């Protein structure tokens, strides 16, 4: 819990004014995407790949974030995030 509070306060301290204006599509799964992805990076990383990654590409990318970049995302959230990205930001 303490770690979570630290992480949340860190996110608040580092999110820029500009990135707070990035809006992802309001569809099921958005909450998980914002909570997990924006911990480490701004959400323009998602929008800039919208014309580039298909479902397989998003699966690979989310897998990389978990397995290589160390994102602590559980399997249930992982699937929700992949579905959201593939459906809303897939090529």
């Amino acid at each position, binding site marked *: 819990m303490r770690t979570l509070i630290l992480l949340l306060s860190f996110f608040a*301290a580092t999110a*820029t*004014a*500009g990135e707070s204006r990035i809006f992802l599509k309001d569809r099921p799964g958005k909450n998980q995407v914002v909570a997990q992805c924006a911990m480490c*990076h701004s959400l323009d990383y998602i929008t*800039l790949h919208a014309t580039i990654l298909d479902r397989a590409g998003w699966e690979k990318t989310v897998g990389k974030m978990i397995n*290589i*970049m*160390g994102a*602590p995302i559980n399997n249930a959230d992982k699937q929700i995030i992949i579905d959201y990205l593939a459906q809303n930001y897939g090529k």
Partner: protein
Amino acid sequence: MVDRRHFIKKSAGSLAALGGLALLQRSGLAAATGAEESTILDTLPGKEALIKKTYRPPNYETPINYFDAPFTPNNLFFVRYHNAVIPDVKISEWRLRIGGDAVLTPLELSLEQLRRDFKQVEIAALCLCAGNRRGLFQPHVPGIQWGSGAMGNALWRGVRLKDVLAGAGIGKSALEVSLAGADSGVHKTTPDFVKSLPLAKALDENTLIAFEMNGEPLPHWNGFPARLIIPGWTATYWIKHLTAVNIISKPFDGYWMKTAYRIPKDRFPSGQFSSQETETAMPITEIVVNSLITNLVDGQTLPNAKPIEIKGVAWDGGNGIARVEVSTDGGINWHQATLKQDYGRFSWRQWHWVFESKRPGAYRIMARATSHSGAGQPLEPIPNPSGYHHNAVQKITIQLA
């Protein structure tokens, strides 16, 4: 040692920079599809408005009209980070540690010691992101969709890495030198951005630990208080906020060497980094020969009555630029451009050529550079999975009326 930085400041871009953005979007190299649409101007603290690719970690490129100057001003220099925790380093607390399993005597240096105890040298060198122009590959490949502005030319002052390594002593088993900076990921589990160099490159007399850029301390966003400068090699090795240099006896096997920043061996010249090569892939190392027209945009209409000065820059990995040629008829005839002042083989070279058209109409403008080694630019970029080394000849159509 460090505070987390609050980079909240935001302001509207200057008119000049907006002009630059229009130039980028309409240049002959601009990406045709949506990847560029989200691009906006944004101002990091201490910088002028630059082209924002991502906010956090910050990735910002320079509008190419600013490349008209031989040296890119510090407040316009591009910004590129892999991890989002970027500390405000205090000089009083900063230390550079020389260690590793192949060091003879581990060493710890303050900035004052670094400046005082080693000979200072200055070198002009192009800092070029390995993925510059990635956004122009068709089809697109994943990664930051850079235009042509993830580069800048600067005069770097610092000390030779080889002198610092000699101060610690290099063991007989030394194979590579690994380099790490003060920035890190949000989670402890995120790999730090750590790179390595082959020992020979670490000992090259041009490889520097720099603390000044264009006569001023390094800007925060460009690696304050000290960063690596590896002239002729892509900027992935130019570690910012340098804190650790390790002399090691085995190939460094972190993600950023083993998996990222790699290119297929069969499509590019030798990488000069045998300890990191596999049968099929090698790390990207040397910059390939390239050029850029900096003052014309695709679709631009100009008065036919006046001569048109076509200007740009050209560069390579350290052989130096032998010639730049310009075509105004889509590559049928080529004319030799005039090279401007030579600031050394690792600097980019400015060039210009005056086009005196005989009649109105559409003209297909191209520029190509050749290095002193005889290497030239391909007409199409060489495809590779991560979109590195985009050095295709630029093509711009202008209208004379």
